[in-house]
């Protein structure tokens, strides 16, 4: 998943997105349509943050770089703005009979920005590069479903603290990837997985041109990257701006209408906001926290304010490895004693909605993921605490203090303390790095803040990584054999509907056991300038959908 740098620095985890508000019902408003001539030669400026790494899809897991990659690349499939099922992009078709072997046909004539054509090998080679542990890429684990992954990605036998080093990989290529012809390749998975095709729109799966493999220094290449998307790279001035321009030979549907895009890399979101108000900036993805109080941003921006629900949730996770939190009645008691309504309205000024589901609203299949303890019920909470036999000592809720989580975590702690009559307080850890270090090492001694942003729009993404044994983000080490079995059945189901039915069964057990507490789901408060038409939309990760931008 991608974590937003600005988000971790300023409260709002910004991310995924559905609908651009403000376009309302009627398109008859003259303001919503753009001026074609102006648009064709037009330039816009949007806000961004300095990418943490060179622009390589294989090594980018934060939104600063991820947004640029998503502009510059087009994957096999696209996630449409407004939610719903993915649509084919570079892929002509993705077929399977057994949910284990997929045959991917790609469209002819799709070009990289250097003029070379996108072929099957560009996908295969890029994926093999990313998965290879010797290349040390952050996104390697996205290929763990593919047969032969263990041969190219070796694990350190005694963990990273131990003296031994990971052995060199046995192979350079994954056995599950095979090219049939220039425009066809097959993907064989280690086990059947009906959800796999949905993942293919994520940036880790983008194709890479020959120039990337020829480059001896990949980081240098990543400073002037070559993608296959609707806009191409022009220049990158560190911490100042990244300039992109329309790729005129782009053949797929999501062409951009405007000509130039400048991503201005702000240090502070308040500076971007000042520029937005003065119409020097055409799109700000998330207005600063200071503008949210009393809904100030709405009066500042008027009809230029967009409220976009995004599939991101803030949770409080339990360290199940700690004996004191192994009683599910206690966990239920804590969940039932948190007043989510009050947190959403008093602390987040209704820019967050109380969670009601285990998946963010809008995710396909999320309706069946209802959370029964996501309500404030003091009586039931007290009864659950009694059933658990009470709680000894002090419960400490942890959060990282370098982002604005203090207020809502303290409110949650107070809510639990006053409802259950036990000692509860919230404590900040100095930085996100220290916080994650303790979580990764399984050394947390109390429930802690967790934020989850979907990698791809599927209910599975809210179950597999978080609650299945060994899941990539199952940091609390929750484990339930039934959940694992149902998850496996769902993954191997023939189609997505059958899979979602199994996942819904699995989440029912999770709902009984409360390994974590969904607290609020997030929406994003964006703003546009008076230069662009209000028919603009945001893509599913909440970033601007460049193909919908028109100037007025």
């Amino acid at each position: 998943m991608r974590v937003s740098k600005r988000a971790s620095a300023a409260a709002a985890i910004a991310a995924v997105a559905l609908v651009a508000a403000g376009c309302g019902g009627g398109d008859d408003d003259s303001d919503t349509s753009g001026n074609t001539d102006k648009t064709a030669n037009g330039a816009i400026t949007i806000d961004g943050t300095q990418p943490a790494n060179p622009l390589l899809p294989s090594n980018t897991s934060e939104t600063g770089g991820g947004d640029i990659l998503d502009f510059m690349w087009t994957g096999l499939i696209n996630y449409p703005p407004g939610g719903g099922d993915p649509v084919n992009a570079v892929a002509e078709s993705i077929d399977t009979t057994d949910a284990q072997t997929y045959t991917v046909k790609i469209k002819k004539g799709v070009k990289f920005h250097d003029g070379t054509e996108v072929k099957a090998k560009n996908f295969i080679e890029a994926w093999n590069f990313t998965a290879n542990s010797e290349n040390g890429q952050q996104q390697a684990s996205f290929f763990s479903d593919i047969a032969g992954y263990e041969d190219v990605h070796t694990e350190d036998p005694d963990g990273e603290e131990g003296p031994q080093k990971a052995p060199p990989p046995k192979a350079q290529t994954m056995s599950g990837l095979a090219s049939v012809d220039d425009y066809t390749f097959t993907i064989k998975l280690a086990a059947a997985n009906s959800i796999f095709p949905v993942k293919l729109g994520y940036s880790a799966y983008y194709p890479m041109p020959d120039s990337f493999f020829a480059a001896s220094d990949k980081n240098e290449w990543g400073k002037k990257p070559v993608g296959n998307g609707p806009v191409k790279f022009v220049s990158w001035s560190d911490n100042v701006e990244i300039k992109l321009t329309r790729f005129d030979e782009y053949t797929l549907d999501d062409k951009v209408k405007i000509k130039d895009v400048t991503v201005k890399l702000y240090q502070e979101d308040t500076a971007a906001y000042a520029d937005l108000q003065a119409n020097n900036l055409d799109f700000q993805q998330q207005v600063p926290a200071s503008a949210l109080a009393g809904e100030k941003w709405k009066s500042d921006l008027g009809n230029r304010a967009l409220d976009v629900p995004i599939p991101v949730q803030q949770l409080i996770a339990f360290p199940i490895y700690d004996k004191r939190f192994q009683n599910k009645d206690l966990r239920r008691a804590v969940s039932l004693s948190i007043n989510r309504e009050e947190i959403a309205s008093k602390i987040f000024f209704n820019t967050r909605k109380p969670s009601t589901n285990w998946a963010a609203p809008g995710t396909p299949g999320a309706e069946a993921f209802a959370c029964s303890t996501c309500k404030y019920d003091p009586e039931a909470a007290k009864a659950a605490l009694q059933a658990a036999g009470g709680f000894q000592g002090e419960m400490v809720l942890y959060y990282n203090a370098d982002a604005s989580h203090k207020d809502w975590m303290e409110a949650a702690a107070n809510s639990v303390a006053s409802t259950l009559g036990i000692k509860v307080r919230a404590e900040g850890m100095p930085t996100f790095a220290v916080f994650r270090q303790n979580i990764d090492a399984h050394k947390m001694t109390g429930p802690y803040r967790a934020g989850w942003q979907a990698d791809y729009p599927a209910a599975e993404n809210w179950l597999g990584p978080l609650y299945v044994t060994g899941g990539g983000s199952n940091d609390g080490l929750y484990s339930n054999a039934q959940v694992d079995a149902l998850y496996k059945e769902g993954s191997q189901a023939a189609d997505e509907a059958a899979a979602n039915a199994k996942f819904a069964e699995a989440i029912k057990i999770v709902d009984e056991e409360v390994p974590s507490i969904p607290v609020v789901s997030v929406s994003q408060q964006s703003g546009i300038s008076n230069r662009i038409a209000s028919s603009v939309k945001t893509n599913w990760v909440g970033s601007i959908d460049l193909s919908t931008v028109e100037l007025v």
Partner: protein
Amino acid sequence: MGRYVLRRLLQLIPVFFGTTLLIYWLVWAVPGDPFAGKCGERACPDSYIQFMTDKYHLDDPWPIQYLYYMGHLLTGDFGQTFGGREISEIIAQAYPNTLKLALVALIIEAIIGLTAGILTGLRRNGFLDNLVLVSTLFLLAIPTFVSGFLLQYLLGVQIGIINPTVSSGAPINELIVPGFVLGSISMAYVARLTRTSIAENSRSDYVRTAVAKGLPQRRVVGVHLLRNSLIPVITFLGTDLGSLMGGAIVTEGIFSINGIGREVYRAIVTKESATVVGIVVVLVMVYLLMNLLVDLLYAALDPRIRYE
């Protein structure tokens, strides 16, 4: 004079090693694994951590890492950030902007501060004196981030006579408002310091002599009074350039200027020791050289001061 300058320059060497060692140790002591938070709400793959740890020698104790770093630095290589950017490039890009901003601030504070100080020092207890006293008190009481946001909002958003943020390359004309914000607190100090110094010296014997000789007022003030009165002010301004550069972090953030303040902050949080050391080393050097320059200026201001 030459020997004095040489001796002062030689003193920079131990200071250079001392500060780099100290900073390296301090950054190393900041808790947290630099790669723990890099992959969001999930642990980074072991292979990634292993790759980066090997590349940056992070398994070694800090003195060894320091030696690696100094070895490279002495050949002119500032190293790379974890993201693969050349630190020398960061320094080359960010320093000029911060230096420009600090110089603009220094010039504004010198011009306004000195003028206010001289005028009030010569005519104490008048209306102007009280006005300056009150307004400097006001400036001292407002933190930089308040005055920064206020001016940005009023001039940039409401009236629209400036851009709320500084564009790339930080042209001087766009730095005037940020420079005013950055220099505003020191400006108050300069005004008060000058006022006191002028007020004291205007009662001294050599001024009375100069007046008694019948010299025009302009010469008495401009040459005799000012030269002596300016010594403490120049000392303050000289060291202030260093602290303005270091303290520009808030102003750079408000006006979105690509300077060293933000870079250093980010590098400390992400435990990029090489970046922190590289930037701070240059900052320390600027500070020391400014001090040297100030010391040399003394002789020009007061011929009684000699260097051996």
